[in-house]
């Protein structure tokens, strides 16, 4: 388990993380989302022992990470800015990783090279951005470590490759009970990947939750009744409605609670239409954050707008 307790990290006058507390359980895919400058990369660099926290402590399996060879041997880190030695080829990099990680497997390396279809003898400098990222992922996954840290890893990968990488990570989680920590500034990126999600904003955790819980605790109901009705029909019957919109006779409601129970209550009013629609993670976030007093747009929209412009 990875544990961060009251971690603070400053860069000159800028506070990148402030009193952050977090626990990452084993065997899950843990997502860190947040806008640029939220502190995701800083947090990853702290848990990988690249940075030393100014305050607080970070432990992996109850061992401090900073300057701890044994602890570091349990994880591999794929940063957002990749590093390869000069004149490096995939083969050369595999030897460097092999020199560092005791569980490095050349067999797995060859299998991955084959899967990604990269030439291991070709200079990495001549690879495209996406291929470089694939090369780093190949090296990292060949290390067969207990923890895998990916910083904006899906950036620059085409959809096919994204799926391949995601599947490989899933395989590692299932087969080796590995733990992956993935950061992204895009919620959509992590939606179908992570078990746990943590939202970082301005150096602090806004909230963290199990994705499955998030998705099941909130749901959308599309309903129509042979009577004039409004939100009261729901609330008066003990249903927690976070959002209610009605067009004609058809209403769309975002509801928190037990899905089956809500359906049972609403079925009693003989609805013409009664559908439960799945919510996207983004929609869940909007409502969850709204409840906490944050505006989703403040954290994400500007970034995503930037992405779209790009």
């Amino acid at each position, binding site marked *: 388990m990875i544990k961060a307790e009251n971690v603070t990290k400053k860069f000159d006058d800028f506070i990148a993380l402030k009193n952050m507390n977090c626990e990452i359980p084993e065997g899950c895919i843990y997502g860190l989302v947040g806008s640029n400058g939220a502190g995701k990369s800083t947090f990853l*660099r702290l848990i990988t022992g*690249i940075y030393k926290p100014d305050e607080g402590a970070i432990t992996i399996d109850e061992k401090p990470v900073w300057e701890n060879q044994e*602890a570091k041997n349990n994880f*591999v*880190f794929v*940063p957002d800015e990749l590093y390869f030695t000069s004149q490096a080829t995939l083969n050369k990099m595999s030897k460097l990783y092999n020199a*560092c990680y*005791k569980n490095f497997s050349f067999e797995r390396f060859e299998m991955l090279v084959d899967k990604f279809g990269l030439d291991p003898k070709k200079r990495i400098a001549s690879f495209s951005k996406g291929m470089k990222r694939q090369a780093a992922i190949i090296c990292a996954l060949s290390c067969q470590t207990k923890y895998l840290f990916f910083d904006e890893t899906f950036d620059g990968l085409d959809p096919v490759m994204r799926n391949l990488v995601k599947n490989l990570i899933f395989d590692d989680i299932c087969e080796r009970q590995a733990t992956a920590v993935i950061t992204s500034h895009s919620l959509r990126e992590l939606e179908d990947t992570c078990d746990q999600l943590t939202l970082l904003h301005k150096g602090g955790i806004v909230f963290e939750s199990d994705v499955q819980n998030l998705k099941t605790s909130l749901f959308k109901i599309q309903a129509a009744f042979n009577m004039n009705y409004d939100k009261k029909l729901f609330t008066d019957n003990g249903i927690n409605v976070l959002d209610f919109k009605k067009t004609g006779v058809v209403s769309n409601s975002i509801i928190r609670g037990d899905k089956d129970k809500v359906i049972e209550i609403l079925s009693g009013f003989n609805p013409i239409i009664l559908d439960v629609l799945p919510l996207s993670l983004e929609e869940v976030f909007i409502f969850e954050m709204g409840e906490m007093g944050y505006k989703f747009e403040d954290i994400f929209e500007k970034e995503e707008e930037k992405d779209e412009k790009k």
Partner: protein
Amino acid sequence: MKRNKFFSPALMLEGIKQTKVVGICFAIVSILLSCYFPFLKIMESSANYWKSDVIMDLGSFVLPIFVLQYLMPIVVVFVLFNFMNSRKASDFYHSIPLSKTCIYVTYTIVALLWSLAVILVSTFLSYILYSFAPEIIINSEFIWTTIISSFILAMLITSITLVAKGLSGTLFTNIIITLIIMFLPRIIILLYTSAVNAAVKITDVSFMSFADIYNNIIFAPFTTNQFMYGYIKQETLPISNASTLWYSAILAIIYFVIGFFINKFRKSESAGKSAAYKGVQPVVRILLGSIPLLLISTNLACGLNVSVEFWFIGIVISLLAYFLYELITTKNAKKLLTAIPFYLIAILVNAIFVVACVGEKNFILNDIPEPSEISSVSISNYIDYSNAINIDDNYYKYKAEDVKFNDKELIDILQSSLVDTVEKVKESNFDELTRDNYMPYDVIIHCSSGRDIKRTIYVNINKYNGSSKPSLDSYLYKNQEYMDILFSLPTDKELKSIKIDSSNMDFSKDELNELWKTYKEEFNSASDKNKSILSYRDNSGNYDNIYGINNITNIKVTGYVGMNNFSQHYLVNANITPKTYSKLINKTMSKLIKDNIIDTVKKNESDAAYFRLDFSDLKNTNNNFILEYYNDNIGDDDLMMSPSVDGTLKRYNVNYSDSGIDKKYIPELRKISNIIINAISDNVDVEKDNLIQCSLSTNVNFEYSYDDDRISGYSLNSQSETVYVNITDEQYDEINNILSKCSKHTNYVDTEN
């Protein structure tokens, strides 16, 4: 599996792979240099008609291997630790399961391995190549001296570069800080000591003996300007001194440890920044700004006037260095404004420097103990120094430092002389002390408090006894311990090398040890007077003909007294040390025969078109005989002079002096050289009474200069060998007959007889 925290063999292999391009490039340069210099030497020796042995000196051997180690460790460390200059690379190295300590130690080993490999390859390659020229003799000890000294240089420069890499995060600042650490401490020490010494004049402020510039292997070679030309003889090359090697190795370890801690606490986020720690940036800037001002400060501290131009240039360079560094490293003009107030610190540093120099000067000049406070004195330089060779590193000077004199009168004389000396210095009348009536003494004053004060005291001879020698002598000669030192030779423990001075002949270590053993026996059984003559300490010794037939040559010994390196000459004299004398001559002769030198002389004689005969003082005290052959293949008018005869046959009271002998007499004159050559061939075992010394010179050693493959010029580099010849009365008469026949001559009256 528990991993080694300090070293990773796998990472070492990776490091070697990463630096193989740089390492191989340096190895190639090193191999080329290792081939080029032996090739030059071989060519040079093959142009030598004498075909006599050329003794290789350490300077020529070590130079091409040594100089490369000034640059190679810096480049290799820069490549290996390049990750410290890039954020992403630094992050990678911080995230892998290897501790910083492990990376630091492993990569340092890689850098040193490359240096060692290049040093070993070049050294052995040089040695093998030189072996293809059998006439070039190399002391096999050169191999170890070269390897050890070059490797220690590599260690020191590697460690310094590691410290610089740890303190900075860009290539530019890496280089600047490396240079600062490498040179600045020495520059400050040098300026400080020279300023104080120049101001005080009566002591040498080598305030810490380890701060001596000779000790630092980076600087040691440049303490002699001959280094770059490779002419330094083994015993004078500072890089072979044990103290230099020890000091530099310890300094390298200290820098390595400092670098270790700097690296350990260095943050990954420092990569790419000009300074890795707070305070480094202003400190470097201030140091850069201070250096040009130090030159002004040194002059001020010496009490010299500093011209307006000097002030102006110094300040402009200082400001440029200070602000340009800031601008280049921060790329932010606004930062220059914030840097302005800190410039005052550069001025303050210089003010402290001047104050420290003046303070030390005043302290030294006012530090005069009362006679009652002095328990004893040691006098190191007064050993009839006026005749001593190499007084600066004289053996007896260092030995005498251990002898303590506690005669009250002597202490009084020296104390009052010190007061006089200091007054003269304070009144700026130092020149007065350098006149004839003053005699300088290097004195160590041992105070009752246990403190020692080292001063050069100028004693007024006239004031104390009015004779040509100060009355101090009597105090010195009364001391048995002093006298024992005066008439002793360096012990075997103190000795480092033995060499026959002024000889081109190579003697093996065993031969030299045997000669020294004989010399020691003769020296020890000689009278005190003769001991003084042999060690060049007696005024009455006849040194006019120092390389004449009686004083054939010197044995030069070097070694250590404590940490001091001494070099002492001992005369080999036909009368005082006859056994050594005979052994030396016979060894020289047998070597000449062995090396077929006589055949070479004969060949030269038959090829020569012209020659010069100089027999000045033949068969008298000096018995010098010079025979020079000029080869007519050269075709130079200046050298194609008419044969000349110059000299005196003392036995017949005849002075021959003719620089324009008729060419028809050349065959006659050649007969003289035949007589000499036959005498050399016939008499290998020589008797000293019948000896003449014959310098046989040929113009065989020419250095040509080429212009488009055409010889455009040459210069004569005369090669001569000294041989010793028995010459019979008949042969002597024959020489006189020939000379009488072919030369104009004037009667010569020997006034002495």
